[in-house]
């Protein structure tokens, strides 16, 4: 480079500096010095649906089912993390569109075709009860264990729940999260709900302690267990192997008492024993 050209360039430096300063700063250009990678998960994720107190960031250990699953994942040396999401549809998205290694929750209502590519491992079996609101039915709401006696009533259900029996009995079904169902029950928008007792007790204690005793368990004639599964994805390269390791680790936890110990951290001993029996039954 000759001296003349160099001098010309020097003359242009202020112009370049001026132009550089004139470029407007836009919001999109204000990246943080803390990069996203510090916050991003670099492991496979199991996507779980929020179901208090079984899967929830509001509960110690992420909830009963999460704590049990985390322990089984660690024992099985499966290097994944559980991410809790508020909506089932988001969890389904990750399974169907992003080939997640597994999902966790209940009432997924998979098609037969989808079911073939999935491995269901029950983690918690929670007894489900039917409830009505005392203010709406001061004399009680008797059904004698037969849904036909509830014809014309409105039933609160979780999205994805199989409500065939309710529909066939002429019962209107309204969907919502458990908290929303409790509020609807209280306001008389629905007549009864079917949810795990532990969820009802937890929500009433946290959000409406003044309502304790007003949500009444209907006479028990028939009920189901609400089963929370970890559902592994055969289409994921590690899905089948992870399911096998997870199942083995979980079976061992149930046998050696560590499963029961986790339950005891969330409920009294008698109830924990009942939960243990249920999962043993559903494991068969």
């Amino acid at each position, binding site marked *: 480079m000759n001296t003349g050209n160099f001098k010309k360039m020097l003359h242009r430096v202020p112009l370049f500096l001026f132009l550089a300063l004139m470029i*407007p*700063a*836009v*919001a*999109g*250009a*204000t*990246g*943080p*010095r*803390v990069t*996203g990678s510090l*916050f*991003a*998960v670099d492991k496979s994720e199991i996507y779980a649906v*929020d179901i208090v107190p079984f899967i929830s*960031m*509001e509960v110690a250990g992420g909830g009963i089912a999460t704590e049990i699953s985390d322990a089984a994942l660690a024992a099985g040396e499966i290097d994944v993390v559980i*991410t*809790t*999401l*508020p*909506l089932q*549809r*988001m969890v389904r*998205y*990750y399974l*169907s*569109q*992003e080939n997640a290694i597994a999902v966790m929750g209940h009432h997924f209502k998979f098609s037969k075709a989808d079911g073939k590519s999935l491995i269901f491992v029950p983690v918690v079996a929670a007894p489900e009860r039917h409830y009505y609101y005392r203010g709406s039915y001061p004399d009680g709401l008797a059904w004698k264990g037969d849904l036909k006696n509830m014809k014309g009533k409105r039933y609160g259900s979780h*999205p994805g729940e199989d409500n065939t029996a309710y529909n066939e009995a002429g019962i209107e079904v309204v969907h919502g*999260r458990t*908290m*929303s169902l409790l*509020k609807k029950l209280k306001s008389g928008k629905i007549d009864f709900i079917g949810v795990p007792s532990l969820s009802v007790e937890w929500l009433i204690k946290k*959000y*409406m302690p003044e309502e304790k005793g007003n949500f009444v368990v209907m006479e028990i004639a028939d009920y189901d267990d609400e089963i929370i599964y970890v559902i592994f994805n055969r289409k994921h390269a590690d899905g089948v192997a992870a399911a096998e390791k997870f199942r083995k680790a979980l079976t061992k936890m149930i046998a050696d008492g560590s499963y029961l110990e986790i339950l005891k951290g969330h409920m009294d001993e008698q109830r924990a024993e009942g939960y243990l029996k249920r999962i043993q039954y559903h494991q068969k």
Partner: protein
Amino acid sequence: MKLITILCLIFFFVVSPVSAANFKIVKPEKVGLSSERLKNMDALIDRHIEQKKIAGAVVMVARKGKIAYFRAAGLADVGKPMKRDTMFRVVSMTKPITSTAIMMLYEEGKLLLSDPVAKYIPEFRNQKVLVPMPKGSPFPYRLEPVKREIQVRDLLAHTSGLMYLFLNDVYPDRGRQMLVDMYKEAGITDGFCRPDEEIGDMVKRLARLPLYKHPGELWDYSLSSDVLGYLIEVVSGMKFDAFVEQRIFKPLKMRDSHFFIPEEKLPRLAAVWKSDWKGSLVRADDKPIVSGDLWLCPTDAHMLSGKYLAGGANVISTVYDYFRFAQMYLNGGELDGVRLLSRKSVELMTATNHSGKFDAEFLHSKGWKFGLGFAIQQDREHSVDSGDVGTYEWAGIYSTRFSIDPKEKKITIFMSQTNPFGHHFELWDKVLVQSASAVAD
């Protein structure tokens, strides 16, 4: 006529008691405003009351730190006249108060505006943006990892990618509709009706839902201020309302500003009126006012206590109290010897480049930018003109608005309680025209 005017003046300035505030009103000419021209403001408000567009209003114009115009007109409730100390649901005028609290924590070194929100609220980690897929696709949307995390500054400037449900009616599109459905299913509300839960519970659920756009890539008025309210709790270790009351309301002597109204002040709370802007004016009943995805619960302001503390919506206040808040800003962060913010932070908040190329169109249309808590007039080439470049302001959904003009050292505050607010853009703009055109020096 002169006698009537004198009697009115005696009533307003002497007889009419103002229980909570001890304020002085100066002659407009003392602060370079024209009394004669301010009569246009009287006429404007009276005309709207006569036409039954609004039931009543309180309007203030202050300049150089002095109140020069402070008038209550019409009804606050059925059979109850509007008074200067009538209390109002200021709703979104809560947002600048929340922003102030965040900036105080920023000045104390508790957080940086560039901090990812996830640093304090872990649920904001690994956020995704919902991208709608073409109709007929196997799945209606895909979720795209954020290009960068939401920062504290995004929440202040409404560039976070979060949403308000009610704007689904204003800016409808498929992606917004999908997200509104998700918000509803997850129990997320706009906070105009007070949910029976803690603000943190809502924010943690919201953080797990997809974003509407990538942070920094859109200006979209949203629940960002509600997230800031919870962030204040996390960073300060205090409940949000306690922080605001102890650190802002008390030092500024905003004695009639509350998250939950004290029982003895209930008679001073204005009713909400429904107006069709054509002469049908009805006091709203106790039911929620629902219009599309907008839910308003005027009677929630009667709650004496509760759990939900919305950083974007919950404050009840008076024109005089809000004047004290605005004057603190106009003074560069201090009032009556009490400094809440430094002059440099006020300058930062009212700078116009926080929202980048995006205009804050929701209230003002083109030519207005959004700072860290306010919309700011950037030029005088567009339809909404508040008198000066650099004027900053915001409004509330029951028809309240404030405007701070640093160049003219002037504050204008209008408060009514009327629904729907859509009609009021024109009235608010006219109030600001009257205020600006009263400048006479």
